């Protein structure tokens, strides 16, 4: 029996010729990541382990992105813990406010992940880097601490579900719709403990940003990781962002999968996940008039340049509905700068939206757009759990940047066709 992409990468990092699903292994990691919420716990545990130095100061990345710029005194203290640790340990990849971005947009942009890597991060959306053909997965703070000390992490080798993508997406349909569609199909635990491997000729028609969005939400199906087969588009991205050597892993012909799904991208509709699970998906033939109070366009799922371009294309020449607060958050400083140069930020401000510095803020109900009791938001973020963006009786509807921008204009959940025809 052959191995999947994920199994091959894990075997190589554990110094083994072969691994099997269910096997417990100790693997070397190429990057360990933490943020201002998870790193302070990891730093405490790191010290409790008696560790004095990190295993490799180039292979640890610390990004203050969740409650930053510091939202309150306690958050400021958490950030200080992380900043001082980064200084003490001479961590090369610490990104201060002004340099930083939302970690999962920033790390690939900085070229810190290449195909074939094993990456762990104390953040569940670390699975984003699977878009680059790397194995990357979210862990907790104690795992992060152990990996910072030893350069290793323990893994149970996962089985995999294969998604064979065919065809091309229709106008306005994006990677976000694809992943919401898949989660709707398999459920929030449909890939529990497993890899989601994306392959097929349809991949070629997906931009890197679409792939980051799809891999990012693999965790929302319970997956350990999501991973894309490497193609020319991936190689071009890597060439532009990194000078590191890398190895491309392909699944064996006889690799075994627990399930195989064929997905015709041309049949994926615009998809919106209703409260309170990402699997609670609806399409526009089912959606009636649902008035909204807020729109958030950003996050590690959809705050990249192509997301902002699509939102701007919809918003250009329009005004946001007077009852809707519209918050646009470029995911990194570089995306912010490019969006400014392209005139996108001007389109947003002219339309009556606010543009924020990079932050995870509203996505997790931290700051910069918290919902009051009974309020409803359309967000390009990744979770719509109870109380996720604020009050326990508020609601989050997950959608693509195109749908979010259209909804901002009409004041109700709307497709871009409604606005632009």
């Amino acid at each position: 029996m052959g191995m999947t992409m994920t199994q091959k990468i894990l075997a190589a990092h554990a110094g083994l010729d072969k691994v099997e699903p269910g096997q417990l292994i100790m693997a070397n990691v190429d990057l360990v990541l933490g943020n201002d919420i998870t790193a302070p716990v990891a730093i405490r545990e790191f010290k409790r382990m008696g560790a004095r130095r990190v295993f490799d100061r180039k292979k640890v990345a610390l990004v203050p992105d969740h409650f930053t710029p510091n939202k309150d005194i306690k958050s400021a203290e958490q950030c200080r813990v992380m900043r001082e640790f980064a200084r003490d340990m001479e961590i090369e990849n610490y990104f201060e406010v002004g340099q930083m971005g939302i970690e999962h947009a920033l790390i690939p942009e900085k070229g810190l992940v290449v195909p074939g890597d094993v990456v762990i991060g104390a953040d569940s959306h670390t699975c984003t880097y699977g878009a680059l053909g790397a194995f990357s997965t979210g862990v907790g703070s104690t795992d992060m601490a152990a990996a910072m000390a030893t350069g290793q992490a323990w893994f149970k080798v996962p089985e995999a579900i294969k998604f064979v993508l065919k065809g091309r997406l229709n106008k306005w349909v994006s990677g976000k719709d694809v992943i919401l569609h898949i989660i709707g199909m398999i459920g929030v635990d449909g890939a529990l403990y497993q890899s989601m491997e994306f392959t097929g000729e349809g991949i070629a028609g997906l931009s890197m940003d679409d792939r980051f969005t799809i891999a990012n939400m693999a965790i929302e199906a319970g997956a350990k990781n999501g991973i894309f087969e490497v193609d020319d588009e991936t190689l071009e991205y890597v060439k532009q962002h990194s000078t590191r050597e890398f190895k491309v892993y392909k699944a064996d012909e006889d690799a075994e999968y627990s399930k195989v799904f064929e997905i015709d991208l041309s049949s994926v509709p615009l998809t919106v996940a209703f409260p309170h699970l990402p699997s609670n998906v609806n399409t526009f033939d089912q959606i009636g008039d649902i008035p909204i109070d807020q729109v958030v366009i950003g996050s590690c799922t959809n705050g990249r340049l192509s997301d902002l371009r699509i939102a701007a294309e919809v918003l250009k020449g329009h005004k946001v509905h007077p009852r809707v607060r519209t918050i646009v958050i470029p995911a990194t400083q570089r995306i912010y700068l490019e969006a400014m140069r392209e005139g996108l930020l001007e389109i947003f401000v002219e339309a009556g939206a606010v543009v924020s510095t990079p932050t995870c803020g509203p996505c997790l109900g931290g700051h910069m757009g918290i919902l009051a009791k009974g309020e409803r938001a359309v967000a390009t973020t990744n979770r719509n759990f109870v109380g996720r963006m604020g009050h326990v009786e508020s609601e989050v509807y997950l959608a693509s940047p195109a749908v979010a921008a259209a909804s901002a204009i009409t004041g109700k959940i709307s497709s871009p066709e409604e606005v632009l025809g």
Partner: protein
Amino acid sequence: MIKGKAIKYGNNVDTDVIIPARYLNTTDPKELAVHCMEDLDPGFRNKVQSGDIMVAGTNFGCGSSREHAPIAIKASGISCIIAETFARIFYRNAINIGLPILECPEAARDLRDGDQVAVDLTTGEITNLTTGKTYKAAPFPQFMQELIRAGGLVEYVKERMGAEG
């Protein structure tokens, strides 16, 4: 042997309701425990007693990787969680911090809120003292037993680093 009353929840209990992000500006277990389960069950704090056993359906602990979630549950006095299935990051976090968890679909479905439950962690045997029915959870793989025996990942790494001198 652990003994306590069952506090039961449903499927897909996510880490946002276990400990909402608005309280993540601290890492103090006691402070986190004050807000544990607040958005799902505001009465949890008053009814939980030291030793109680949390029982849940499928995909318990899904969502965010925040270790604050198992930390808050542990600091609330919960001695063990029995669920049909756990989300994988929560699963490893619980093991890593030494919070016992058992996957046992039959027990998780049968146990009722308020039942008195006994759990033998070494054998995986779960007894509903209220009804007398017993269940058997799948044993942990050997590596995880070592982690649990060591007292969690911190102690395990400490031992290994010590051994390597």
